[in-house]
């Protein structure tokens, strides 16, 4: 081959390599989801789930069921809400990537347009400024077996998310030594120094995390975690019944120094999986010395063509407002909603709904349940019928652990029993990645709500029905 031809061949080979190299150097991953759901309910989007006078009612409810002083019968709501999430990951190598995620919500079709309002923009004309940044963080394997996450990331506790499960800014290092997986992290929830004395880092709401998991055998995994909550920022009081003004939730200076120690375990034996945890909280929460705890047990068992599951959760409560407290502490944001959630019970109204988006209301919306705590037992069965069609049904029974006259100041509730929920769902895969679902739920209210509606009447039982379309890619 002549020199010129050799050069031509080398040039061609060089071009081929150059064309391949960028794919090796930077991998772009793009993922997302879309969900739209029609809701018919006398619970979500109705008067009994909005605190009067709170501007957050424009979100289709304000997280908590509050039929107190409301008419016994409420009109049923009919609306459609939708959500899209878009995630982009820039992967420089398998050891380094930037992860981002954005969200665009419509609280309900027809809400507003041409303005600036998160979770809105579905009125005619659209053109709303409403994009939300959920996550921006660096994920890097900085040393052999040491992973670092830095920035605004999703993070949750190791106890079925009953204390925190949110997007939060911080830094977390995790590792893996054979069967041991330790994690250490620091997160800053709020910094309100600027509004108090113009010193950043002075009045903050922080979390320190030390977590370890150990695989004893293939079938037995155990874990332990220590969390330290330090909050001396202006935030909402996690145990008080929320108070609102026209600007939303009222924040007050907090003083929380709370140590949390928890143990968890999971054991599998053939078709049976058992899991559970225990949590002890000790310290001070706003001058009250606090000792609170939570216990959980869960089971999943393959029966016939489907799978049965059961859950039990006890969270301590406190009947008083002074002296030593047993009220359980969990994380909130400053707009008055929980940044934690217990979803393993598969409830729709009694607990937080796995399909909830902007409209996200519950009878037990928070782990501490305004200092009352909670006792709940839940059972369910999942039955796949075909490759495309699956069904499930659940029942739940829940009460407050202690009556502290929440929502009815100066007056005890008739009972601690909150209610019994039954729900059922069917999911059909229309296309690969596109699923349509129907989920209905009904709650037989307990005597906790007896006589709490307007004129001493008892509110009608709440229900909720959804038709859902969900696409994820």
């Amino acid at each position: 081959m002549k020199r010129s031809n050799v050069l031509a061949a080398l040039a061609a080979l060089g071009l081929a390599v150059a064309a391949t190299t960028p794919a090796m150097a930077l991998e772009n991953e793009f993922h997302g989801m879309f969900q739209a759901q029609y809701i018919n309910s006398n619970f979500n989007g109705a008067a009994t789930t909005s605190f009067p006078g709170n501007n957050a009612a424009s979100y289709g409810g304000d997280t908590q069921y509050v039929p107190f002083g409301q008419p016994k019968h409420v009109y049923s709501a009919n609306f459609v809400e939708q959500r899209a999430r878009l995630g982009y990951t820039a992967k420089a190598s398998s050891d380094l990537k930037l992860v981002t995620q954005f969200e665009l919500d419509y609280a309900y079709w027809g809400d507003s347009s041409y303005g600036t309002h998160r979770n809105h923009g579905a009125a005619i004309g659209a053109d709303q400024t409403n994009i939300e940044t959920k996550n921006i963080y660096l994920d890097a394997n900085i040393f052999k077996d040491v992973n670092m996450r830095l920035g605004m990331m999703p993070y949750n506790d190791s106890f079925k998310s009953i204390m925190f499960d949110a997007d939060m800014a911080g830094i977390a290092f995790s590792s893996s030594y054979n069967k041991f997986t330790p994690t250490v992290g620091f997160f800053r929830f709020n910094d309100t120094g600027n509004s108090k004395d113009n010193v950043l880092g002075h009045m903050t709401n922080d979390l320190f995390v030390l977590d370890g998991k150990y695989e004893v055998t293939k079938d037995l995994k155990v874990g332990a975690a220590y969390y330290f909550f330090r909050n001396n920022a202006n935030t909402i009081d996690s145990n008080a019944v929320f108070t609102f003004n026209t600007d939303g939730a009222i924040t007050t200076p907090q003083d929380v120094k709370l140590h949390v120690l928890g143990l968890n375990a999971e054991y599998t034996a053939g078709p049976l999986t058992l899991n559970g945890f225990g949590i002890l909280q000790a310290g001070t929460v706003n001058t009250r010395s606090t000792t609170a705890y939570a216990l959980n047990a869960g089971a999943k068992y393959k029966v016939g063509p489907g799978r049965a599951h059961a859950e039990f959760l006890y969270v301590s409560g406190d009947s008083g407002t002074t002296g030593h407290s047993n009220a359980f502490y969990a994380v909130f944001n400053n707009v008055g909603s929980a940044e934690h959630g217990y979803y393993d019970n598969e409830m729709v109204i009694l607990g937080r709904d796995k399909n909830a988006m902007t409209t996200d209301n519950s009878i037990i919306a928070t782990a501490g349940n305004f200092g009352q705590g909670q006792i709940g037992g839940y059972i369910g069965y999942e039955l796949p019928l075909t490759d495309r069609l699956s069904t499930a049904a659940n029942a739940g029974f829940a009460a407050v652990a202690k009556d502290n006259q929440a929502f009815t100041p100066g007056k005890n509730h008739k009972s601690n029993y909150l209610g019994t929920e039954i729900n059922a769902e069917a999911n059909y895969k229309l296309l690969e990645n596109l699923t349509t679902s129907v989920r209905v739920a009904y709650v037989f209210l307990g005597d906790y709500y007896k006589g709490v509606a307007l004129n001493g009447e008892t509110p009608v039982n709440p229900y909720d029905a959804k038709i859902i379309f969900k696409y994820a890619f």
Partner: protein
Amino acid sequence: MRPCFIPKKRSRPMKKVLIAVLTAFALSATTVAFAADVKSNEKDECLLASKGCKDQVDSIQQKIKKINVEIKKGKKVYSAEELKKLQQKLKEADEILNSLDKPGR
């Protein structure tokens, strides 16, 4: 004299065409290698080390499926260290799906 030069002059374009065809073949062969499914006894370098991912666009569900297939190949194909890496990637993919599906406001 002139006819004698004609074949020589034509031979150069022929060689160039040949080189171009061979190059195109080489390139197409590379592309086919990228696009083809990974054989049961081969490593998936795209999943493992972000190499050779050209033209691959997987949904998150497809990605999870693929990683599970690779993990099932086990120690016949992957070293213990590589299997650990794949497990980590499965965890990350699950995290992405959970994050997209996460309920709440």
